[in-house]
């Protein structure tokens, strides 16, 4: 099948299906539609990868100029421009509806440059309008597979919800918009899809329609719209300076235009807001109010990933200016360390995960800042592993919320006994995100290697941050494994789990394990072609370097399975814990260190530092142009 067609399908199928499901009145029909869409998306994305692989090409380009609606050919550019204006109008409407001047201002600030641009470039066509390279394929795979699994999971999770139809429509449109942003080469299209994700995010956070939900949604909207403003100005700058709207052409231009750094810095700023980097992190934390599948979607495969995708995409442009590289890396490093410290103080599982997301995205952004072939490979590997593991973690947390009515890590004690499957999945999720044999480590190792080529302060932040990361995840891991002795005896009671949960969690666990085991293949077939096309070299083509990791994985699995098999527990072997000879019910609370170092204080410090760095980044961009 034609790759271009596949790409278009990946964009429009979910949108259509979403609209279709909205139209369908019956919930069962909707579910069927969503289910079919999910499977089709997975298949389509795999087909796209196969198409790329079999043609052997690094990049496939297409022009998608016209779309036939009822026999009338309408230029897609025009359609998107019209929709874009509608979108801006809707944002302003939201601003009016909620009486929020900031939203209105941001809406107008986008509308004006967009209007100017549309007037200036009318008739200007971008060719090719669709570019599919391996980065886009990786993104499409992540979005389509992980996103689909989350949506299927949501089918069960949202079972008793009142506004299911809307919910699933927005979720699926979200996936379509993400795919659209990934494939677009036309900056205006990219911007349009970018703003659609902002809208979807807003609608999903607002889903419960409580006061808190409205506020959180509005906050998310303000932050991401602010980023959108930066993006819009970046596009205007690019068009006025380089006379092009093709992202590809901009990137290969090598910054020859007089004002080349400024739009790059503005786009990086947009990406920071989208990826919720410090100091823009508060919207993502507020987004926790949304139902868990939304969090899973926002954190793993969509929304925040669009930010880091954009940064990886424009990474060649970031390398035009060394100080920009430094500042971008610093923002990532500060986010990584700051959120790691903040996560230690949290007991709410979703907040821990939110901070961990920001931290991991910080790592990726740090890689982009370092900007060697090695670092970019690491960034992409991290992006893949993080999506899978984070989705898995959020989904397990969601199941725990449904089955055990808690989001509190402290109350997840005995989880291994009550919900063994979920506890196991959660454990694997934590392993894959944190510990050596699995994916995250590979990324970290790459960063350490890459960082050693310079950036001493970044190394320092990273070294401390990764140690602190181990701290909060180990605490969590320990908590879910804490059980009394009775759990291991045959008489222990275990509760039942819904099939959909089992399938979706199982699928992600399988993905996580397979990715970890096949890390070399993942790098070779997915990451290396892109790195080769950008840098002309592949630093990671040595299987021996990865071998110890795989051995560690096997070691881990082997130890767990063999110990489970061979350590037999008889009642006479079980003892009780040391209590100083006393015998009373005692409570165990974890250590959060939040009395010594208050949460708000840490947030303030890191926000302050990060704000300085971001402002410095913009100043540097301006100054290099002026001088």
């Amino acid at each position: 099948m034609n790759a271009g067609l596949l790409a278009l399908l990946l964009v429009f199928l979910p949108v259509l299906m979403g609209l279709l499901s909205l139209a369908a009145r019956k919930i069962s029909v909707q579910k069927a539609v969503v289910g079919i869409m999910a499977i089709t998306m997975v298949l389509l994305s795999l087909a796209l990868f196969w198409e790329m692989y079999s043609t052997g090409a690094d990049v496939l380009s297409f022009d998608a100029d016209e779309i036939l609606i009822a026999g009338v050919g309408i230029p897609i550019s025009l359609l998107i421009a019209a929709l874009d204006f509608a979108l801006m109008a809707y944002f302003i409407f939201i601003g009016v509806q909620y009486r929020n001047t900031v939203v209105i201002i941001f809406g107008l600030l986008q509308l004006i440059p967009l209007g100017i641009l549309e007037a200036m470039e009318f008739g200007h066509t971008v060719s090719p309008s669709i570019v599919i390279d391996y980065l886009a394929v990786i993104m499409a795979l992540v979005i389509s597979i992980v996103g689909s699994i989350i949506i299927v999971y949501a089918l069960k999770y949202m079972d008793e919800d009142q506004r299911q139809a809307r919910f699933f429509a927005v979720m699926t449109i979200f996936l379509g918009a993400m795919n659209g942003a990934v494939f677009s080469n036309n900056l205006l299209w990219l911007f349009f899809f970018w703003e659609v994700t902002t809208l979807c995010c807003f609608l999903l956070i607002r889903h419960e329609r409580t006061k808190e939900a409205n506020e959180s949604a509005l906050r998310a909207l303000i932050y991401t719209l602010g980023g959108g403003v930066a993006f819009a100005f970046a596009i205007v700058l690019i068009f006025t300076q380089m006379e092009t709207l093709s992202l590809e052409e901009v990137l290969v231009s090598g910054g020859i235009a007089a004002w080349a750094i400024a739009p790059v810095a503005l786009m990086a700023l947009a990406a920071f807001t989208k990826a919720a980097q410090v100091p823009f992190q508060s919207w993502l934390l507020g987004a926790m109010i949304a139902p868990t599948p939304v969090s899973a979607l926002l954190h793993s495969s969509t929304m925040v990933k669009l930010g880091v995708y954009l940064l990886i995409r424009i990474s060649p442009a970031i390398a035009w200016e060394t100080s920009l590289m430094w500042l971008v890396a610093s923002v990532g490093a500060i986010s990584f360390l700051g959120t790691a410290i903040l996560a230690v103080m949290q007991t709410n599982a979703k907040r821990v995960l939110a901070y961990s997301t920001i931290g991991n995205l910080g790592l990726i952004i740090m890689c982009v800042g370092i900007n060697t072939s090695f670092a970019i490979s690491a960034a992409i590997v991290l992006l893949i592993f993080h999506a899978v593991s984070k989705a898995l973690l959020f989904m397990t947390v969601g199941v725990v919320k449904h089955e055990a009515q808690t989001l509190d890590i402290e109350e997840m004690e005995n989880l291994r006994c009550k919900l063994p499957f979920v506890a196991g999945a959660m454990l694997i999720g934590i392993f894959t995100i944190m510990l050596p044999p699995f994916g995250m480590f590979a990324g970290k190792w790459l960063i350490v290697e890459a960082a050693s080529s310079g950036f001493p302060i970044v190394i320092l932040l990273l070294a401390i941050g990764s140690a602190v990361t181990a701290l909060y995840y180990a605490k969590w891991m320990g908590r879910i494994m804490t059980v009394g002795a009775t759990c291991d005896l045959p008489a222990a009671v275990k509760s039942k789990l819904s099939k959909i949960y089992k399938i979706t969690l199982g699928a992600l666990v399988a993905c996580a394990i397979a990715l970890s085991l096949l890390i070399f293949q993942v790098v070779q077939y997915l990451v290396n072609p892109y790195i080769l096309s950008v840098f002309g070299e592949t630093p990671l083509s040595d299987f021996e370097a990865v071998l110890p990791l795989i051995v560690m994985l096997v070691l881990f699995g082997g130890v767990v399975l063999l110990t489970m098999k061979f350590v037999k527990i008889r009642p006479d072997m079980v003892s009780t814990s040391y209590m100083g000879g006393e015998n009373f019910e005692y409570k165990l609370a974890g250590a959060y260190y939040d009395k010594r170092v208050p949460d708000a204080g840490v947030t303030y410090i890191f926000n302050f530092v990060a704000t300085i760095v971001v402002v410095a980044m913009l100043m540097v961009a301006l100054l290099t142009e002026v001088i």
Partner: protein
Amino acid sequence: MDWWVLLAIQIAIIVLAPFLAAILLGLDRIITARMQNRVGPPVLQVLYDFFKLIGKKPMLLNRPQVIFAVLYLMFVAFAFVLFVLGLDLIIIFFAAAAGSVFLAVGAFTVRSPYSHMGANRELLQIAAYEPVFLLALLLIGIQAGSFNVADLYAVGDLMILLPLVFVALIAVLVIKLQKSPYDVATAHQEIVSGPYIEYSGPYLAITKLGHWYEFALMLGVITLFFNSDNIVVSIIVKIALIAVAMLVVQVIDNVTARLTKERMLKFTATFGIIVIAANYAIIVVLQNVGVI
């Protein structure tokens, strides 16, 4: 050297190293005892304890406890194997770090207040010494131009260029060896050996073996600091380095009280990082001046 001779030597090191480390710990106990006007146990007392523990009836609280004890052992042993095979320092570091984390998680799996407190403190310790350790390794790797242990053994002048890194590693060694003033995680007067409290019999032996491997690995890193073409000189100086490090640790242990965990965190993190940064700055300056 034939490959099989090399392999035999490597296997011998891997198998014997923890026990040599144990004997070293036995020596440590005797010297400590002498410093305290005691006679002290026999040199092999540590090993007698170990074999006695293995022979005991297994008692446990729950199964994950055992899983994580074995994982701890396996990962630190694997890190040591990688070290002996001369592979990447960073991977070795992460494997060992994972081992330590598993030990803490193992302590979390049981419902026991002291075990949990010990695990929390252990994690805080990891957060304190890991950055220092990692930075030390990074500096060693950058200085030697390679992260492969095999290549590092061909570099001769690490001790001359990185004396302060050696000092930082001793600070890490104090924590790793559970010595005053920073033995907060296993403080028996407060939390009764912390993470180890609920292990007994063969499972305690497993954690002990893991500890020895960790110790052997630390000593292995210390031996990286001096290499010479003359193998006899090389070995003698390496042993001397280990002896110096151990003695320093012992003296520190004997002249200090245990400090609190906050002080441990502050001191190790600031002292270690400042010392390493100073070493790095000195190298950069010297390179720019053109001395090296």
